[in-house]
């Protein structure tokens, strides 16, 4: 056996579990159909196909998604730096601070211009 076996086994297990859950639920669950069951519950919206113009995300959340990406990237840069922080020393710290300053500028800009307001 070699090093790839655990990964393969894990993959098979994950896939198998997903398949098992779906199939077993279909087999063992009771099937009782009536019209009301297909209705949305009290607070729900009528389950009709969404017309064009509906069912879309408002564009304002784009900024949230964008901020996530920017800080995600900050994270993947921080990780190798953190691992190497002893060897990199002051030089690495200054380099990282310059980088972070730039991202803080982004953050300040977004904040000041209302990009982080929720409504």
């Amino acid at each position, binding site marked *: 056996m070699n090093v790839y076996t655990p990964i393969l086994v894990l993959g098979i297990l994950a896939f198998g579990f997903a398949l098992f859950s779906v199939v077993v639920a279909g087999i063992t669950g009771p099937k009782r159909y009536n019209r009301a069951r297909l209705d949305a519950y009290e607070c729900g919206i009528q389950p009709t196909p969404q017309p064009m113009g509906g069912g879309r995300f408002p*564009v304002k959340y*784009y900024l949230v998604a*964008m901020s996530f*990406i*920017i800080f*995600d*990237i900050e994270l*993947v*840069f921080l990780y190798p730096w953190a691992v190497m922080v002893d060897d990199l020393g002051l030089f690495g710290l200054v380099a990282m601070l310059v980088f972070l300053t730039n991202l803080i500028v982004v953050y300040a800009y977004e904040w000041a211009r209302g990009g982080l307001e929720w409504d």
Partner: protein
Amino acid sequence: MNPTNYLVLSAILFSIGAAGVLVRRNAIVVFMCIELMLNASNLAFVTFARMNGTLDGQVVAFFVMVVAAAEVVVGLAIIVTIFRTRNSASVDEPNLLRL
């Protein structure tokens, strides 16, 4: 297995992406095809890194991922904006720029 297989895979993916850019008309899908091309380049860089025994190729692939993320933010913002102006995201539709 022949190590060159990784490069063959990279070439196949790159070609699929390039063909997709030429065939598809939806701007978002075209952009996905470009992302596939970047991914294929990354695979080539990683394979060459291993071939040469240096980490330089991996570092390039890392930077390419970061660049791709920035490019995606800008590109999708442009596509969303044009969609809001025109309610459609097809490259060919009412194209004012044709002569």
